[in-house]
């Protein structure tokens, strides 16, 4: 059976490789993909939308409907991860809590779960955690603000340079995940808790769909950002650029929240007590 599967796989691969010889040359201006709508985008997108990055104008404006449902797919991924993995009753096999006395490095194990020390010298740690490492923590603490600023830059600057909501949102989520890895999961959750994340992931999709519905209310088509000029103090071309920025911000919020939800639920098996 395994040999048969190997033969079928090799045959399929050979046919696929053979089929690539029929492909148009890379960058061929006469390729079918470059004849239909691409010339229009290349010639007129800057004039029509006021956004220098053609990719962003295609993704967020000409093909805005598509991107909206991509954001919805991301939202659904986070939702299903939450529904499948999250465990709410925490009575199962708790082994107490661990605290580390920072000046001496001694770890104290409390058998009860309800111990809560709020002292500067004591630090809550995970039971499986590696020893205290000053370098990792300091590097994490120094890096996180810069990563977050870079994420915000990528979202806000998506109209002019490569980047946009998806990438910026992932970078913002990466900063929180770095916090969860270098410190521990509880520190990350105390900075941005579960309820906020749920609200943010829905809010991102809502911003996107809301901008689309706003265009409907202003007697345009769905996601027809040019109609936003009626309520914004700018012309219709600038309004399209601003509409794209709003949509990108929505995508960024949704992606950031969903990535953090997925990470927290996978790393802690849905218990949210300790993770990677």
């Amino acid at each position, binding site marked *: 059976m395994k040999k048969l599967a190997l033969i079928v796989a090799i045959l399929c691969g050979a046919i696929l490789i053979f089929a690539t010889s029929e492909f148009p040359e890379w960058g061929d201006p006469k390729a079918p993909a470059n004849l239909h709508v691409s010339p229009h985008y290349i010639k007129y997108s800057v004039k029509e939308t006021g956004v220098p990055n053609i*990719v*962003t104008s295609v993704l967020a404006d000409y093909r805005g409907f598509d991107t909206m449902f991509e954001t919805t797919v991301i939202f659904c991924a986070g939702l299903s991860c939450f529904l499948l993995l999250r465990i709410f009753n925490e009575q199962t096999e708790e082994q107490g809590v661990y605290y580390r006395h920072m000046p001496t490095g001694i770890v104290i194990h409390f058998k009860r779960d309800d111990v809560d020390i709020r002292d500067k010298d004591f630090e809550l740690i995970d039971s499986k955690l590696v020893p205290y490492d000053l370098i990792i923590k300091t590097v994490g603490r120094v890096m996180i603000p810069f990563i977050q600023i870079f994420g915000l830059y*990528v979202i806000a600057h998506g109209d002019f340079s490569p980047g946009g909501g998806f*990438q910026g949102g*992932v970078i913002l989520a*990466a900063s929180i995940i770095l916090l969860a890895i270098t410190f521990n999961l509880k520190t990350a959750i105390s900075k941005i808790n579960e309820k906020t994340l749920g609200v943010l992931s829905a809010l991102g999709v809502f911003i996107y769909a809301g901008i689309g519905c706003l265009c409907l209310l202003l007697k345009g088509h769905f996601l027809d950002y040019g109609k936003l000029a009626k309520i914004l103090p700018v012309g219709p071309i600038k309004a399209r650029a601003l509409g794209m920025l709003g949509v990108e911000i929505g995508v960024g919020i949704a992606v950031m929240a969903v990535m953090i939800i997925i990470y927290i639920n996978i*790393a802690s098996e849905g218990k949210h007590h300790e*993770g990677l």
Partner: protein
Amino acid sequence: MWILDLIILALIIVCAVGAITIKDLLGTAILLGAYSFMMCVLWAIMGAVDVAFTEASVGAGVSTVFFVAAIFRTTRRTRD
């Protein structure tokens, strides 16, 4: 320039084949991250900078972290 393309394509194939043959799942996750990063470099060479950026952040960054987190909670060895 085509030598660089060839080297990167060879590395991509090595990473992809390694990712499905290695028994250690943590190594597989790292190799998949390397594979994504090589794809990112290839896309950047071809001029698709937006796609390269997405691949670098989502493929090489966050999905590797997800794999490592899943391995941390399950097992590091494959059964087959």
